[in-house]
C-alpha cells in the first residue's frame, strides 16, 4: 500500500524523518528551512515524539545531542548563519560519537547574504565547518523524492556509524513541490544504533573490540558512563596520552572513510561513452541532466555524474572516469567549492576540469551549461 503526496522538499524531509523513527526535534527558525521545524512541531507530538523551539541554533544542536544520548533519534534543521552557529556542537557530536541528523537548507552568504534565494554555498562548511580533523557524512538530494529518501538514509547512517550526518539541500529543492510515493512504514529499512551486549559493569562507551563503531547505551538504563568532548580513552574519560589520542583521531576518520562503498550514493547518466562528464549536485544536477540530453542532440558526447554523497568525496570513482574521459565540467551555485575537490581528486591525471559558477541567487539553466559545453568542446 502506498499513497502519493504532493510535498515540498522541506515537508518531504519532515515526513522522511518521521518514517526513519525520529522522535525529537530541536531548532531555531530560519529561512528557507523553517517549514521543516513547522512540520516537525505538528507531526512529532502525534507520533510519540517531542518538539522544542530553542533560543538559538547552538541550543538546538545541544538539545538534539542530549536527546540522542537518552536513545532518541534527533533532528535539527537550519540554514547558512544558523549552520555556522551549530559548528561547535557538530564537532562535539563527532568527538563523542552521538548520532544526530542536521539539515542545512543552503542560502547565499557570507553573513545574512540572500535569505530567500538558492545557493550551494555550504559545501565546504559542511565538510570543514567545525574545528579539528574529522570525517563527516554529507548527503545532497536533487529532488523532493530524494529529500524524503535521503533523510531516512541520513538517520540510518547516523545510527549505524554513531556520527552526525548532514543533509544539504538548496532553496529550490526545499520549496518546490513534487509527488512523493509514500509506503507504509514496514516498507522502509530502518537501522538503529547497536546497544551494548555486555553487563553495565563491563561497558565502555568507546570499546572497539567488535569493530570501529562502539555500541552506545542510552542514559537511564543502568549503564552509567562518562561522555566528554575532551580526547578520551575507551572508558570515555579524558586522556591526553599521545598513542590513545592518535588512535582516536584515526578511528574517527577511518570508521567513516573505510566504509564509503556502503553509502557512496550517486546518479550516473550516459557516462560510459562520454567525452565530457558534468559533475553536478542538488538542483543543478537537474539542469545538467537536460543539458546532457541537449548536448547529445548537437553531437557532444556529454554525461552526468551526480555525487549524492558529497562527503566523503569518492575519489576512486573520479579516477575511474578519468581513464576514459578527459574533460570534466563542474557547474555549481557557488564560486567553485566542489570544483576544487574534483580537481584534487584527479591530481596527476591528464584531464581538463572546467568550472561554471554563479553565486548571485540565480539558477544555472540547462542552456547556460550547454553553451559552456559547446565552448570547451569547440562545437
Amino acid at each position, binding site marked *: 500500500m502506498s499513497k502519493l503526496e504532493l510535498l515540498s522538499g522541506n515537508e518531504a524531509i519532515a515526513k522522511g524523518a518521521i518514517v526513519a523513527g525520529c522522535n525529537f526535534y530541536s531548532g531555531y527558525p530560519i529561512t528557507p528551512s523553517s517549514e521543516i521545524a513547522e512540520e516537525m512541531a505538528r507531526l512529532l507530538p502525534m507520533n510519540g515524539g517531542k518538539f522544542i523551539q530553542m533560543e538559538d541554533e547552538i541550543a538546538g544542536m545541544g538539545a538534539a545531542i542530549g*536527546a540522542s544520548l537518552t536513545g532518541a533519534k534527533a533532528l535539527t534543521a537550519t540554514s547558512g548563519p544558523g549552520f555556522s552557529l551549530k559548528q561547535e556542537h557538530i564537532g562535539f557530536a563527532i568527538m563523542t560519537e552521538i548520532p544526530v541528523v542536521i539539515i542545512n537548507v543552503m542560502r547565499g552568504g557570507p553573513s545574512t547574504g540572500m535569505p530567500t534565494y538558492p545557493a550551494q554555498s555550504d559545501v565546504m562548511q559542511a565538510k570543514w565547518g567545525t574545528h579539528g580533523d574529522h570525517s563527516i557524512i554529507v548527503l545532497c538530494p536533487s529532488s523532493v523524492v530524494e529529500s524524503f529518501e535521503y533523510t531516512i538514509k541520513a538517520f540510518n547512517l547516523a545510527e549505524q556509524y554513531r556520527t552526525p550526518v548532514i543533509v544539504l539541500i538548496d532553496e529550490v529543492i526545499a520549496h518546490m513541490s513534487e509527488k512523493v510515493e509514500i509506503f507504509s512504514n514496514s516498507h522502509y529499512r530502518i537501522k538503529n544504533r547497536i546497544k551494548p551486549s555486555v553487563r553495565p559493569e563491563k561497558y565502555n562507551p568507546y570499546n572497539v573490540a567488535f569493530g570501529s563503531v562502539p555500541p552506545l547505551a542510552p542514559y537511564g538504563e543502568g549503564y552509567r558512563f562518562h561522555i566528554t568532548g575532551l580526547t578520551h580513552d575507551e572508558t570515555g574519560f579524558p586522556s591526553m596520552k599521545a598513542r590513545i589520542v592518535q588512535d582516536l583521531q584515526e578511528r574517527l576518520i577511518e570508521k567513516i572513510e573505510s566504509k564509503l562503498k556502503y553509502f557512496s550514493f550517486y546518479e550516473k547518466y550516459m557516462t560510459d561513452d562520454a567525452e565530457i562528464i558534468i559533475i553536478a549536485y542538488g538542483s543543478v544536477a537537474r539542469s545538467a541532466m537536460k543539458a546532457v540530453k541537449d548536448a547529445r542532440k548537437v553531437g557532444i558526447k556529454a554525461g552526468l555524474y551526480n555525487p549524492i554523497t558529497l562527503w566523503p568525496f569518492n575519489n576512486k570513482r573520479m579516477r575511474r572516469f578519468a581513464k576514459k574521459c578527459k574533460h570534466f565540467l563542474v557547474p555549481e551555485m557557488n564560486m567553485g567549492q566542489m570544483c576544487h575537490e574534483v580537481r584534487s581528486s584527479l591530481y596527476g591525471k591528464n584531464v581538463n576540469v572546467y568550472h561554471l559558477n554563479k553565486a548571485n541567487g540565480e539558477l544555472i539553466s540547462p542552456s547556460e551549461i550547454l553553451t559552456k559545453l559547446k565552448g570547451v568542446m569547440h562545437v
Partner: protein
Amino acid sequence: MYNENIFDYMRTEKLPHIWCPGCGHGIITASIVRAISNLKLDKNNIAFVSGIGCSGRTPGYLDFNTLHTTHGRSLTFSTGIKMAKPKLKVINVLGDGDALAIGGNHFIHACRRNIDITAIIYNNSIYGMTGGQFSPTTPDGFIASTTPYGNCDPSFDVVKLASAAGASFVARGDAFHVLQLDKILQKAIDHKGFSVVDVLTTCPTQLGRRNKMKKPWENLDYIANQTVSIKKYETMSENEKQGKFPIGIFIEEKRDEYVETYTKRVINKAKGRK
C-alpha cells in the same frame, strides 16, 4: 555532616581530583552528593551535566550518567535529555562564566521554561580554568588577569536574574555555610521545575592570589564575611547591604513544569487530531 555514604555515589578510582588545594569546588561537590544521598536517589536515573571550566570537571568524579559538554551550553544538552527522557533527574553544574557570560542566553531561557533541571552555579567570581580573567560576577575593583587596573564592569546578581527570568526555585548558598548548603541543595534537587542555586565559592589560585587572599582560608573567610541570612539582610540599611549577599531560599513555588505542560497541552491535543 560527615557522611560515608557519599563514596557510594562517587567514582573514587578517579580521585584525586584536578582541583587546586584549597579550591572551593570540592566543598560544593561533596554537598551535592550528600544532598543526593539524603534524597536516596537512584544513581541510574540521574543525568549529571556540566559545561567547561574547573566546575566542568565535577561529573567525572560522580557515578551517574555523566556528561561534560561545551563551554556555556550545558543547559541545552540538559534540556534535550529532560525532554526526551523525563524520568531522569537532571542536575547541571556550571561556572559563573559558563552560566552567565557565554551561557547567559541558555540560562535565562531555561529559567523561563521552568523545565525540571537543577542548575548549580559554582560562583567563584573568576574564570578559574583559563587563568583568572574577570567574569560577570567579579566584584568591583578586583584584580583579574584582564582587569590589571581593577575591574570596572558591573556584575550580575544571579538570584535577581534567575527570579526575573522565571525559575520556580531560586536560592543562594556558599562554600563556608556548608550545613545550610546541604539543605538548600537537597531542596533544589527535590524541587519540580527549574531550580537555581548560586553557590558563592573560592578560587584561591586565580582570584585570591591577585586580591590579597592568597591562602585558601582567606578567600573562604571573605566569602563567610560577605554572606548574611535573608532575614538579617532585610533589616540592614542600604549602606550596610553594600557588598553583602543574602543567603537562603528566595523563591520556592509550585508552577507548571515544562515537559509536563508540553505533554498535557501539546501531545494530548495532537493525538486527538491524528
